[in-house]
């Protein structure tokens, strides 16, 4: 069994507006609240039950935010990739512990719901972008 630090391992690829995957791992430093798979449950408790009972419902859509330092690199930087994505859908691929064979991978289609540039005195210029999962999350490996 192994444990992993984030830096140097976590990889995230997001489709740009042409549909090409862009590795934004060099720019993103936070994913909130994280990415995984989420299932709804439905209460089917009845009179005869001595404890609550549930059945699985539909897979729930997750929403998440990526954040990092603003960078104006053309074509592959976060501003060039994320700004044109707002309101469009593309593939997000998240590799929390790297891309070695067998490492965990999460992949889904997601709508970019916002892209924001922030600047506060004495701080770096930062960006954040929000996504809404659309459809199923595929949990697999590299």
């Amino acid at each position, binding site marked *: 069994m192994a444990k992993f630090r984030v830096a140097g391992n976590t990889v995230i690829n997001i489709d740009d507006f042409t549909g090409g995957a862009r590795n934004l791992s060099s720019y993103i430093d936070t994913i909130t609240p994280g990415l995984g798979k989420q299932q709804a449950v439905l209460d089917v408790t009845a009179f005869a039950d001595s404890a609550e009972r549930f059945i699985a419902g539909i897979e729930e859509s997750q929403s998440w935010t990526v954040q990092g330092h603003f960078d104006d690199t053309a074509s592959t930087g976060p501003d060039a990739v994320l700004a044109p994505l707002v309101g469009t859908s593309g593939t997000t691929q998240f590799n929390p512990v790297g891309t070695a064979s067998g490492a965990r991978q999460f992949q889904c289609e997601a709508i970019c719901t916002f892209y924001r540039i*922030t600047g506060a005195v004495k701080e770096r210029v930062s960006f954040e972008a929000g996504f809404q*999962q659309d459809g199923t999350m595929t949990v697999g490996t590299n």
Partner: protein
Amino acid sequence: MGKFYSNALRLYWGGFNPGTATTSAALGLVSAVVDDTSWGDEAESFTPTLRQDTLTWAGIFDDGSDSMDAAATALLGSSTNNVLSFLVGTGTGSIAYAGTIIQTVVRAPVTFNELVRHEAEFQPDQPWDRGFSYGEATSITTATGSGTTGTIDNSAISTATAAWYLQVTTGSFGAGTAIVYLQAATTSDWIDIATAGGINARTSVRVLTTGSAGTIHRRTRMRVENDGTSITIAGVLSRSPSSPT
């Protein structure tokens, strides 16, 4: 190309430059989504709908001629002269977001033993246009009569349509001052493609241009026309779309 410290940010609005008293700002490109999940879906499904872009601003209260206080006095609630330009970097080619916007709120929070603060809220009335700037201090000086600037951008790359955003911050003008935008496929066949009239200090202008064949060449100029008075304009010019990739 690279990363930026917050002192690289610039904000111009209606020809005012309140950036010197800014402590924080956030520009947002936002899309609403609607749930279109149906019985046949294994997972929740969504569709994007309206753009709902945002801008927030906070700073230190300043009573200068370029301040947010002066700008709000002139522009609060206005739908004219209401272009806002948000630049990351000051050099030619810096990323510039621009668009028309309405200021909805301005307030001055006060707390004992602290500086008087300033806050403003805005409602963009178009999606933010991502483009690039020609530098923070595009200067044009022309003698009596029509004048021609030096070339702003001389690349041979072409792009279809463009939106130009000009912030005129200072200068002395004649009653008939206008800005004319020109394009050229080569260095010698300049043609006028759009004119913005009524240019004066504290003016912001948005002009849409298209070439005769549906494309606009990136080789561009900006010419000032006046009614006989020698004028100088200082301001910020940006253009979207951004550099073709």
